């Protein structure tokens, strides 16, 4: 008995020894609550999730910066708020201000690059579904780069995902025209392959053909390609999904979102929030309030005035546009409003501008009056427009100033139309075209020896 047991022990011991010589399979530990990098894109739902992930990055990109980039350096806003707001309005941009960071933009680009590379592998055959996903990714990449070239000028152009340390990390700046070429290429793809529409509200917060065409219109206007701009704008205007809302519903474009006028807005909710209230509506401590010149710019009887800012005696004036007339809550909570990036009024006015540039003022005036009529201010003819604002173009830009106020257009309009120095010079001494771009953030320079600071800021 004793011996047998001894043998048993020995045998068990030896067995155990070999049992644990089990091969490396023990060492295969796949992630449980996430996916391994290369292994993610496998099914069509992965592809869909990957694309939603790009929008997630977009939410971060625009939560504050749509205002810093688009309004912060222009004449419609005034501020007492230290940090970026004061630096921007006083034209004291430094390489440490937060709006000089491009991290979120490139995070969006990276996610888009992953999707664009891997989604084709998920589907055996090219399908409408896979193409529209790729088209959304390309549109989002184009949107990101379009902000990048307008904010920094030349920027590194990266169109492949990073998956290996053997890839080139230190990418130098690419000429902005080349970046714009890539943007146009992506947007043409998107305008051909995006879906016409999605069901319900989704159609306003995801990229559709309409969104791609609207963005393309902005890009062509930036590049002064007016014929192309008109062409893509027409595609938007002809799209039955989009119509100007009535004046009664005008506020709701921003306060409720998902309006018929909206072409693309970045969706937010209670937990995925943005900084609209901190930017515009804290009263005593918000980043921005309307400038004196902006308040004086309204024509008599403009119905939009009371909807845009606090016209009561209160000072400083809150910007009501995004929250509704009479809004008085001063808590610095995050906001859940969507941020409207592309809407029909913008495209109509851009088209008007393009016609004006091509000498077709009657068409331009017609489009301009569409917007004026809604606000119940007198429709103008060419002579009146010139008499009031100096030129038809100025009349259109004035209309953009009011209609699109605080939505992140003004600074880019000034730069695009060559008016930045004449408008901002008297306010903050802006005098050099090299100063139109932002400096590259010091962190980006520190991380990439191949990058050079933009000339003006060297």
């Amino acid at each position, binding site marked *: 008995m004793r011996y047998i047991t001894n043998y*048993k*022990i020995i045998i068990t011991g030896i067995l*155990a020894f070999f049992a644990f010589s089990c*091969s490396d399979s023990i060492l295969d530990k796949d992630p449980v609550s996430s996916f391994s990098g290369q292994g993610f894109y496998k099914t069509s739902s992965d592809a869909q999730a990957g694309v939603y992930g790009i929008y997630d990055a977009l939410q971060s990109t625009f939560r504050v910066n749509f205002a810093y980039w688009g309004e912060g350096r222009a004449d419609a806003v005034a501020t007492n708020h230290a940090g970026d707001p004061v630096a921007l309005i006083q034209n004291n941009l430094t390489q440490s201000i937060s709006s000089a960071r491009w991290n979120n933009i490139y995070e969006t680009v990276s996610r888009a690059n992953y999707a664009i590379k891997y989604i084709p592998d998920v589907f055996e055959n090219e399908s409408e579904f896979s193409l529209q996903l790729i088209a959304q990714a390309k549109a989002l990449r184009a949107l990101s780069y379009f902000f990048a070239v307008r904010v920094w000028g030349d920027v590194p152009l990266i169109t492949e995902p990073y998956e*290996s340390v053997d890839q080139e990390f230190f990418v130098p700046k690419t000429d902005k025209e080349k970046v714009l070429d890539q943007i146009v290429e992506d947007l043409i793809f998107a305008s051909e392959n995006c879906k016409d529409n999605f069901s319900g509200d989704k159609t306003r917060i995801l990229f559709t053909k309409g969104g791609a065409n609207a963005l393309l219109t902005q890009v062509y206007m930036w590049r002064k390609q007016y014929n192309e701009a008109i062409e893509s704008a027409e595609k938007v205007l002809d799209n039955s999904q989009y119509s100007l809302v009535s004046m009664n519903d005008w506020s709701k474009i921003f306060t409720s979102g998902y309006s018929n006028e909206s072409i693309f807005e970045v969706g937010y909710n209670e937990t995925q929030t943005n900084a609209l209230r901190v930017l515009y509506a804290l009263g005593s401590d918000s980043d921005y309030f309307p400038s004196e010149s902006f308040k004086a710019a309204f024509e008599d009887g403009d119905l939009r005035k009371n909807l845009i800012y606090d016209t009561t005696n209160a000072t400083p004036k809150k910007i009501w546009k995004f929250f509704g007339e009479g809004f008085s809550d001063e808590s610095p909570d995050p906001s859940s409003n969507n941020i409207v990036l592309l809407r029909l009024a913008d495209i109509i006015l851009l088209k008007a501008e393009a016609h004006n540039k091509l000498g077709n003022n009657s068409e331009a005036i017609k489009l301009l009056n569409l917007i004026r009529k809604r606000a119940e201010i007198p429709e103008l003819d060419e002579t009146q427009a010139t008499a009031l604002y100096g030129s038809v173009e100025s009349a259109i830009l004035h209309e953009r100033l009011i209609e699109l106020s605080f939505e992140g257009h003004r600074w880019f309009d000034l730069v695009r139309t060559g008016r930045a120095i004449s408008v901002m010079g008297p306010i903050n001494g802006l005098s050099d075209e090299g100063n139109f771009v932002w400096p590259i953030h010091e962190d980006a320079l520190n991380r990439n020896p191949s990058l050079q600071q933009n000339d003006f800021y060297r």
Partner: protein
Amino acid sequence: MHSYPLSRCKRELTKRTVLGILFLVCCAFSNGYSQNQSVSGRITDEATGEPLFGVNVIVKGTLNGVSSDLNGNYSIKNVTPENILMFSYMGFTDQEIRIGNTTEINVILIPSVDQLDELVIVGYGTKKKRNLTGAIVSVGSEDIDKSNLQDPISILQGRAAGVQVTSNSGAPGGGMSIKVRGNSSLNSGNSPLYVVDGVPIESSSLSSLNGSENFGLNPLADINPGDIQSIEILKDAASTAIYGSRAANGVVLITTKRGISGKAQVDLNISSGVSEIPRRLSVLNASQYRQVILDSYRNMDNPVTPNGIILDSLNPKNNGDVDWQKELLRIAPQNKIDLSVRGGTDDLKYAWSSSFLDQDGIILNSNYKRVTTRLNVDFKVSEKVTFGQSISYTNGVNNRINAGGTGNLSVIRELLVRPPIFAAYLPDGSYNGYQFGRRNPIGLAELATHLNKSNRVIGNQYVEYNILESLKLRSNLNLDYTSIKEDEFIPSTLDYREGYNSGSVRSINNLTWGNETFLSFNKQLGESHNLSALAGLSFQDWKYERVGLDGMFFSSDNITTLNGAGTISNQEVNITTEHSMLSYFGRVSYDYKGKYLFEANLRADGSSRFGEDQRFGYFPSAAVAWRFSDEAFLKNVDLLNDAKLRLSVGQTGNESIGNYTSRGEFMVGANYLDYSGAAPSVMPNSGLTWETTTQYNGGLDLSFLNNRLTFNADVYLKITEDLLYNVPIPRTTGFSYVTQNIGSIENKGIELSLNSRNLVGDFKWETNFNISANRNQIKELPENLLTNGFIQNGDFHILKEGLPIGTFYGYKFNGVYSRDEDNVNQVTNGALGQQFKGGDPIWDDVNGDNIIDENDKQIIGDATPDFFGGINNTFSYKGLSLGVFLQFSYGNDIYSEINHQRNSVVRYNNLSTDALDRWREQGDVTNFPKPVSDDPLRSDSRVQSRWVEDGSYIKLKNINIRYRFPDNMVDNLGMRKLEVYASALNVLTWTHYTGFDPDVNSYSGLREGIDEGSYPQSRTIMLGLNIGF
């Protein structure tokens, strides 16, 4: 090679365990005795001739035992002539005497020639101290018991050469950092591997709430120091290589007390004490403060009127003159009870213990309660088979306050910088709430919930089978299971927003389990050859799971659980990560007459964390030692008892990176509104592998004067290559870093320790001294990582070739411009910035271009000490003993971020009394610049030498007085032992540092030597009673 799936392995394991248990049950047997005679006698010390009291006299193989009285007399009944009496006494060689037909046996005990015969725990075994070939330092239970500390890491501070321990937080159960022979890793953790009774335990904080690292908890606090028999720290590669890829930072082996054969010994240890802050810092009072704020507005370029609220002394919210340290600090009681029972027979030995600790923190509303219980059993079922286990359970409840960092919620920061004018309470007795971005710290401490509740089981079961006399098979199953629940709630009373409250809950389960099976062989061949060998394999698996929710807008402050939340703002549902290792290890040792000793180790480790082609790493080591005192030419030197020279070389690894880093990661939860999204979160690097540390060690052990003086010295060189580092990469990649194997670090150093029994006899005096110096240097960093020649490491440190890791880098403060005209070179702040004026700081213009910018940053300090150590003196006379323990660190700098906060008017901070010397008007000569509200020069927040201070210190860490009552008196009370003691901790600190305590380290990682306002350490006085039956 066989290829079994994991499940098969588990089945095999179960099968083997069951077989083993069956066998053990079959073979159990017991002995009986017959008794009739009695024996007595006197026991004396051979050296002095004095009687020895308290000598254990046991009839071998029985429970029958007594101890000698004060006069050295003993008497033992119920013995037979065949019995053998065993006489044992600490510090003396055991004696065994067969009784025969006599009734009187007088014994002369010989002082143990050698503490060198003591056994030291090494990886997978034990060794006689005299046969060690590596560098191992050992701390025994006596030091542990006398320290009166509540966790095993603190005990090592100053007691073990080469081991640097710093405090991350002085809160009860708060975090500690431990570093063995310097930092050998940039990114992957510098803490050693902890092995408790053969269980490799989780030693990093699992807390996930309230939990940035600078106020983490100490997971080792789950181990009751009272249970510990010894702590061994393995330092050189010869000792650690057997632990392979986890051993690059050293290995700490903790061994708990096991059962003893003989009569059951019951020990009860009760202690109570109080803690207080050893030092308060001076701050301005209300009127001094108001004046500074007024000055700070007046000093603006375009002065504006200060916010009325600050000046309005009639407003009940602002008419306070509050001493916040007085409001928030307190005298805090603590109580501890330890109860243990140890006993058994030769065949079944047990040690059971239980302890309860209730410790208040010195800051309002912080408290730690810990219950531990442990059972260690060794059961010899036959001559060949032993079965045993160690199992411990700990329940910890840590009621914390938010003490860390400089964030908006930190109570410590508010303790020092909250404006004195802010009333603590309003006239109606309610808290004075949120003001100017600041929450009321009393409210924060009293009303906010930060509760950490943990349950932990550490267990090890083994079967040992003596196949032959010289060949042993041991297999053990180990596990370490921790379950933590954390709750956080911040009520709306603390917020500025109506109804704005928030709460979080986390539930964490962490399990590591594994099996180690090894054969060990030990044989003496002939007279002079000793050979031993070890071969084994091990498997270890880790699984971490976390579930959590964050919520806000709770319907009421009275419902703090997440079901009351109006909005769920974040959910972490079932986050799970896993990791596994498979290892093979072996060792061969040989010695010739104990004079020439050799040892070689090899471990092969495979880890799931690394790229598929890089999974296995091989870690060899070899050591030789020469006991030259045994050579003929030294044989007759009486002065020298023992002398040994040791040399070792070997390699170890560091595998501490994210479980899935090498594969890259897509995270879920990158949602767009309600649509589930995923996004890349970790950039893959399929080539990732271990950090490899190559270490050379040379050691010398000398023992003089009949072993009264022993001296140990070690020198070492440690080179770590293939450092795992989160290399910052351009954000244009979409990632902020990628983990790579880069560069190398070198640590070299010297460790000396000296133990001397200065006086022996009735009055004894013993001194233990140790001192260590480590020089750390970054040898190589890849060119492409460097910006301006270095890597920025956090806000204050840089990593640069040729410099140590703890290097602070910033602007050098050269005083204050007395007048505008003193800026003769018209130095400006940046190329376009304004010119410095009177009252502004004078910055060292390194390149002399009269522009202060990034190019003028320089090295402004180093957090690593030149040397550190400790000295312990023990005096005893009969039953009375006094221990005095000093601990020191020299040459380390501290970057005092809290001093920055304390000397800057940002956000209406209160200032230290140094501000009374501030620059006020042209011509003032001072070193305190003018305070400027909303300072465009940002003079205070620059990283600068003004906030770097000498952190050298000598600390009277512990004084311990105890009296052990004479045994004859104790006998009459029916006791075995009675001891009373008093102990004082952190009694005095000599330092130039101006913060709370120079033993501070707000971050446990590489960013050493930062004081961000950690929970201060306390001075504690304890009284205790030790009763043994």
